[in-house]
């Protein structure tokens, strides 16, 4: 699971008010290089919640992203390549996503998070 996906997901437990972002417990992170596309990155930049993204990438062992951003940074190759790397090349293979409000762990195995709720959580 990549960080772009993590950035889209919120805890879905009944009654939880602020389920985003899910905290990451990383047990195994794998890097898989993919070709970079600047236009795509600029589009994704508009969608990404930056603070959660930086925090998540730190949990995955990558600390090269700036804390604060503005769209002017999209002109910089250096920034784009770091953004690309963190967004699309880091995979959480084993670990968990944790609900920030309840602490409930959603396990991640072989890169796939299990977000299925128990009966009492729906």
């Amino acid at each position: 699971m990549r960080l772009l996906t993590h950035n889209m997901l919120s805890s879905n437990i009944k009654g939880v008010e602020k389920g985003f972002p899910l905290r990451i417990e990383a047990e195994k992170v794998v890097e898989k290089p993919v070709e970079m596309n600047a236009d795509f990155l600029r589009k994704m930049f508009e969608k990404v919640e930056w603070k959660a993204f930086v925090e998540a990438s730190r949990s995955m062992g990558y600390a090269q992203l700036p804390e604060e951003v503005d769209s002017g940074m999209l002109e910089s190759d250096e920034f784009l390549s770091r953004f690309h790397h963190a967004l699309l090349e880091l995979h959480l293979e084993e670990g968990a996503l944790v609900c920030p409000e309840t602490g409930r762990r959603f396990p991640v195995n072989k890169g796939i998070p299990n977000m299925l709720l128990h009966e009492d959580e729906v």
Partner: protein
Amino acid sequence: MKLKQLEGLLGGLDQFPNPKVELEQYPTGPHIASRMLFTAENSFEDISNKVVADFGCGCGTLGVAAALLTLIRHVLSIDIDPESLEIASLNAEELEVDMDFIQSNVMDLRWRGSTSLEVKYGILHLLNGDIWGQVYTIFLVHTLGQIVDTVIMNPPFGTRKKGADLDFLNVALKVASQAVYSLHKSSTREHVKRTALRDFNACNAEVLCELRYDLPKLYKFHKKKEVDIAVDLWRFVPGKHQS
């Protein structure tokens, strides 16, 4: 990539070895899948440069098709069944496409920004009863982008769990910001159109074409060796999202 080439590649995918009837697990054949994605991309540009979600992905055919058509996209495939996801994952690996998978009930999944109003660079304080607070709120709802652009799906027809086809459509129209591609039995055409426009806030509902869905005898209760069902390939456009 040409249509025939896409269809050929999809024909090599592994499918359900032991399909679960209660989940209405039927493979989406390469003929339908290739046409669906080819049209979405070449007629409507709904795949390139987009975040694409496959709802109820099964063994992954639709998501894989999207991922093959263009390298410039993010594909996210969701299913409730871990065994299908295992196969889907292997299919993606086999064809060397990068895509993400989530195990979840599509109805229960919660997406960031769907219930709360979160501003990218700050926190919004809702000012109850204050007219300017309310105006600001409305402005934000419209400027916040929905994260998922396009939803592609071959939902259950609703033969096991009544109304499942429309439940899927309902949630797809809430999640997608640009378009929903879906397959529904041709016999339900008028009902689907009416429900999408009137109840699910779709601003457009169009049958792109009618296809034949070859269902081989998968389950013991199937009497015929093979059956041909007329299905409509739909493109829906969600209405403006409101909170």
